[in-house]
C-alpha cells in the first residue's frame, strides 16, 4: 500500500530535503515506522525516547488529526496522504 507523507519545511533537513516521501503500511503507525526506517534522522524529531509521538508534532490523515481517529491504529488506504504538522513559533 503506497501512502504519501508530506514533510514540513522544518523537518526536511532530516528527510533528505524531500517534501514528500512515499511509504507503505496498513495503518498510520506502520506508515510512520516505514518513514523513519527510510529516513532515520527523522526519528528523534517525531518520537520521544519511549516511542510516543512527540507532543509538538501532530499527524493528520487527510484533514483529520489522528488523535481523534484511532491514533496509530488508524487504517490507511491506497493513495491517502499523511501530513506532519510541527509547531512553529516564528513571527518577526
Amino acid at each position, binding site marked *: 500500500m503506497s501512502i504519501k507523507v508530506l514533510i514540513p519545511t522544518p523537518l526536511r533537513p532530516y528527510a533528505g530535503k524531500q517534501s514528500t516521501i512515499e511509504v507503505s503500511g496498513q495503518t498510520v503507525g506502520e506508515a510512520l515506522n516505514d518513514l523513519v526506517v527510510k529516513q532515520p534522522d527523522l526519528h528523534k524529531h517525531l518520537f520521544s525516547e519511549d516511542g510516543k509521538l512527540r507532543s*509538538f508534532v501532530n499527524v493528520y490523515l487527510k484533514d483529520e488529526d489522528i488523535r481523534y481517529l484511532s491514533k496509530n491504529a488508524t487504517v490507511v488506504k491506497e493513495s491517502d496522504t499523511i501530513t506532519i504538522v510541527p509547531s512553529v513559533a516564528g513571527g518577526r
Partner: protein
Amino acid sequence: MAELIDGSQIKLSNEEILRYSRHLIMPEVTLEGQKKLKAARVLCVGTGGLGSPLALYLAAAGVGTLGLVDFDVVDYTNLQRQILHHTADVGRLKLDSAIDKLTAINPFVEIKRFDKYLNSQNALEIFSGFDVIADGTDNFATRYLVNDACVLSGKPNVYASIFRFEGQASIFATEAGPCYRCLYPEPPPPGLVPSCAEGGVLGVLPGLLGVIQATEVIKLILGAGEPLIGRLVLVDALAMRFRELRIRKNPECPVCGTNPTVKELIDYNQFCGIRGEEAEASTSARIPEIQPEELKRRLDAKEDIFVLDVREPHEYQIVNINGHLIPLGDLPTRVHELDSSREIVVHCKSGARSAKAVDFLRKSGFKRATNLTGGILAWAERIDPSLPKY
C-alpha cells in the same frame, strides 16, 4: 455566537464616513459594522514580520483602538519583511516607528503603547483593555503565554506563525473552539526547532500570514463570515498551496479542558525548557573558546591552526574567512576530513552551532578543538570590518 463588539454608541464624523465609504457600501460591513470596528480594541503582540501588515491593515480599516506590545529596536535585518519600519528607522524603538506609520495612515486610530516584554506578571493586565488579541510573536514561551492569558481572560487569540516559506494560522481560545494547547500540548525542547533567525524567512511570507490575521480580526469584530475557528490553515508559499486541517477542542486540555490544571499564568521560560544564565554558563564553560583577537594574532604568527566553518554552503557564499567548510549536520559523516592531532578552531555565524560542533569533536577524540567566540559576526565586528554581516 454572541456579539463581540457593541458599536451602537459610536458616531462617525463626515470625514470618517468618506474614508470608510468602500466598507460602508458593503452589506457585510455597513455603517453598523464600521462603528463596531471603531469601538473595537485590538492588541497586537509584536510589531515585526506578522505585526507589520496586521497593524497597518487594522489601522487602515478603522479599528478604533490598537494596542502594540514591543520592546525591540529596529534592526537592519528587519527591513526585508517588517514593512512598518523604514530604513531611516534603524536604531529607533519599533513602537516609535510603528506609531508614526500607523497614525500617518489613519489619525482616527487611538494607539496604546506597551514598551515591554510581555510576561506572566503583566499579560492579564494588558489584555484586560482589549477585545481581541493578535499573536505576532516569535518564540514558544510567548506563544504559550499569549494563549493561556487569552483562555484565562476569555479573549480570542488570532494566531499565525511562520518558518521559511511556510505558515500556519488559526483563531484560538474562543469559548467553543480549541486553544493552542489543544493543538500542541507542549513546546518542543529548545534547539530542536530552528527560529527564523537561524532558518531564515521569505520576506513576503509574514505579509501573507499577517494579512490572514488582520482579516480574521476584522471578521470577529464584524461578526461576519466563517471565522477561522477549529481550522488550521497551512500556507506553503513556495508551492502556493493553502491547506486546511481540522482542529478540535481537547476535553483534556490543561488550560481550556473540562478539568483545567493551569488556572493562572505560569513560568513560560521554564515550561519551554529555557535554562537560566547559570545553566548556559556551565554549558559554555565545558566548551573551550578562543577570542577573535587571539585567533588573529596566532594566525598572523603562522601558527598551525585549522579553521573549520560549520555553517551552510549558502552562508559561506555570503562571507567566509577561508575556513574548511563542513556544515554541522554533515560533520558526523565527514569527520574523517579532519586531523585530530592539529589544533582546530571551529566557527559558525555567531557561536551556537560551532559550540555543538566542538562538543561533538571533543567527544570524538579531537581534544584540540575550540570554539571561536561570537562566530564570523564577531570576527567581522572586531577583526575585519570590511566583511559583510548578515
